[in-house]
C-alpha cells in the first residue's frame, strides 16, 4: 500500500510542479499582439489578479482590446489570485524592458520591494481598480479606480428621490471588511442620514452572493413583512437573490418594494428590463482607455494626479432596455 501512496504523492507533486512551470512559460507565449509600427510601438506589461468574476473578465478584455486598437504591444499575465505570481510577473516585465506597467494589485500591502525595483528601472506603474499601501507615493504614477463611496451616494440620492424622502430601507451588505462594502455603506448612509423620515430598519451581510442575499431577504420579509419599502444591495448578485425572495413572498419586486444595487452586470440589466430591479449604479470595469491615456501622458513627460476617478453611471429602468445590448459584461 505504501508504494501506492508514494506513487500517488509523486504524481500529485509532479502535477503541481508541471503546473507551475507552465504558468511561467505562459507569459512570453501570450504575447500575440502584432507590432504595428516598428520602432515606435509602446510595450506595456499588465499584471491582472485573475478571472474570478465577470467584472474582472470584462476589465481584462477592455485592457487587451484597447491595446490592440492603439497598437500597443501588451504583455499580459494572469496571477490566479496570488501576489507572488504578480511579483514574478512584474520582475519579468523589468527584464523585458517594458515602457510602462499596469497593475491590478490583489492585496494592498507587500509591494514596496518590487515597486522599488521597477522605479530603479525607470518604468512608470499605473494601478487599476485597487490601491496599494506604500510609504513612498512616488512608487506609482497614478491609480485609476471607481469611487465606491460615490457609488453609495449615487444609490442613496436616487432612492431618496424615488421614495420622496420617506420610507423603510433594508440593506444587504457585502462581505464584512471588504473595501467596496465599507465604502458603499458609508456613501449611502451619508445621504440617507440627511432624511429624517428615511430609516434603515435592517442590515445584514449577504457576502456578495445570490444565495445569501436571498436567504437574508427571506428572513427580513418574515420579520418586517409589508413594512419594507426599499432594498439597498451592495452588489447586483445580492439584489438578484432578494428579488427572488420578494417574488416568493407574493410581492412584486420593483413595484411593492423598490430595489437599488451597484455594479451594473448583465443580469441586473435583464432584471431591470423585466421591471424587477429599479436601478443599478455601474461600477465601470472598462478601464482600458483611461489606462492607456495615462500611459501616453506619462511617456510624454506629464505628471498625473495620484488618483484618477473613473466616472460611474447610474442606470434605471427607463434606459435599461436601450443599453442592454451594448453591455459587455
Amino acid at each position, binding site marked *: 500500500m505504501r508504494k501506492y501512496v508514494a506513487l500517488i504523492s509523486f504524481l500529485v507533486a509532479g502535477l503541481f510542479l508541471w503546473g507551475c512551470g507552465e504558468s511561467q512559460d505562459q507569459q512570453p507565449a501570450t504575447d500575440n499582439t502584432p507590432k504595428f509600427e516598428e520602432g515606435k510601438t509602446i510595450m506595456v506589461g499588465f499584471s491582472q489578479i485573475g*478571472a474570478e468574476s465577470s467584472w474582472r*473578465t470584462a476589465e481584462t478584455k477592455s485592457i487587451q482590446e484597447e491595446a490592440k486598437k492603439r497598437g500597443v504591444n501588451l504583455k499580459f499575465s494572469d496571477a490566479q489570485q496570488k501576489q507572488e505570481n504578480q511579483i514574478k510577473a512584474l520582475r519579468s516585465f523589468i527584464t523585458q524592458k517594458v515602457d510602462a506597467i499596469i497593475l491590478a494589485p490583489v492585496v494592498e500591502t507587500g509591494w514596496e520591494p518590487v515597486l522599488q525595483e521597477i522605479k530603479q528601472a525607470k518604468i512608470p506603474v499605473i494601478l487599476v481598480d485597487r490601491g496599494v499601501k506604500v510609504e513612498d507615493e512616488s512608487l506609482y504614477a497614478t491609480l485609476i479606480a471607481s469611487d465606491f463611496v460615490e457609488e453609495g451616494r449615487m444609490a442613496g440620492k436616487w432612492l431618496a428621490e424615488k421614495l420622496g424622502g420617506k420610507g423603510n430601507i433594508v440593506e444587504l451588505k457585502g462581505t464584512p471588511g471588504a473595501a467596496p462594502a465599507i465604502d458603499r455603506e458609508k456613501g449611502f448612509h451619508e445621504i440617507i442620514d440627511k432624511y429624517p423620515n428615511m430609516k434603515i430598519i435592517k*442590515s*445584514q451581510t449577504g457576502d456578495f452572493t445570490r444565495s445569501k442575499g436571498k436567504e*437574508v431577504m427571506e428572513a427580513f420579509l*418574515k420579520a418586517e413583512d409589508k413594512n419594507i419599502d426599499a432594498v439597498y444591495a451592495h452588489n447586483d448578485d445580492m439584489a438578484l*437573490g432578494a428579488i427572488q425572495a420578494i417574488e416568493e*413572498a407574493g410581492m412584486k419586486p420593483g413595484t411593492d418594494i423598490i430595489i437599488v444595487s451597484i455594479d451594473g452586470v448583465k443580469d441586473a440589466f435583464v432584471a431591470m428590463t423585466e421591471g424587477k430591479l429599479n436601478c443599478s449604479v455601474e461600477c465601470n470595469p472598462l478601464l482600458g482607455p483611461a489606462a492607456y491615456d495615462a500611459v501616453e501622458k506619462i511617456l510624454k513627460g506629464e505628471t498625473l494626479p495620484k488618483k484618477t476617478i473613473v466616472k460611474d453611471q447610474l442606470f434605471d429602468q427607463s434606459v435599461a432596455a436601450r443599453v442592454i445590448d451594448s453591455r459587455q459584461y
Partner: protein
Amino acid sequence: MKPFRRKIRIPEQLIWPIAALFILLIFNFLFTENFFHIEIRNGKLFGSLIDILDRASPLMLVALGMTLVIATGGIDLSVGAVMAITGTIIAGLLAMPDFSILSWFNLPASFSLALCIALATGIIFGACNGILVSFFNIQAIVATLILMVAGRGIAQLLSNGQIITVQNDTFSFWGNGYFLGFPFTVFIVIIGFAVCWILIRKTALGLFVEASGSNPVASHYSGINIRMVKFMIYGFSGFCAGLAGILVAADIKAADANNAGLYLELDAILATVLGGTALKGGRCFLAGSLIGAVLIQSVTTTILTRGVPVEYTLVVKALVIVMICLLQSAEFRRMIINRFRKTGK
C-alpha cells in the same frame, strides 16, 4: 430501569439535540416577533419555520451522506466542492447549448437528462474519494481534501468563473416549488432519509457500516468487505452532495461556482456531531444529523430575523453552538449537577 423507557426508545444521544432545538424555539417563541407566525400565501405555507426547513434541506442531505462516512471512521471534506460541480453541470447543460458532452452527442438539453448527468458526476467524484480512501488506504481527511481544493477549481473551469443563470421551470421547481403547501426540497429530504434509514436500519448494510467504523480488524476477520463498504459509502456521500448542489443552484436559478456550498462541509460535520454521531466512527444517528442540520439553520435564521448586527453574527452563532455542545457533554452536565448539590447542602 423503569419499564416504560423501553417503549419510547429515543437513544440518549438524540435527546440533547432535540432539547437544544426546543430551547431555541422557545426562546424565539418568547422573544422574536412573528417567528411562529405561519400563513398561507398563494397556496404556500409562509413563515420563518418553513424557511428553516427549506434552507436546511441541502445541509440535511449532505449531513446524511456525511453521517455514514463518519460512521465508517472517515470524513468527507469534498462535499462543498462536489455541490459546486454538480450545480454548475446541471445549470450549464440547461442554459448553455454548447456546454460539453451534450452537443458532442447531439442530445437535447432536457431536464431529466441533465439531472441524471449531474447526479452521476456527484457519484463519480464521491467514488474517486472512495477509491483513494479504501483501496489506496490514504487517510480520509487527506484524500477528500484534494477534491475539496481541486473540485471548486473544476467547477470554476466549467463555468469560466461566471455565474450561469438558468431559465427552466422544472429546474426552478426543484429549488422553489411547493407541494401540498410545503417546499419541494423538504420532500426530497424525506425521501432521502427514508431510503437511507431503510437501507441502514432494516438491512445488514447498517451493521457493516457501523462495524467497519468501530473495529475494522474484527470486521475484516468476520468476513465484511470493508473496502467495498467504504467505497460505496463515499459514493453515496457524493450522491447526497450532488443532489444538494442541484437544490442550491435551483434555489437561485443560477450556478455560482465560486460560492455554492462554500464551507458547507464544516456545517455538515457539525450537524453530524451535534446529532450524536461520534467522529471516531461506529454508531451513527441519521435522524440526529437531520436535527443537527435544522438546529444550525435555526440559529442562522434566528440571527437574521432578529437583526443581530453584522459584526456580532459569527460570535453569536459560535456562542450558541458552544452552549449546545456543552449541553451535550455528559462531563459538563455532571459538573453542573455536582455544583448544585454542593450549594444545596
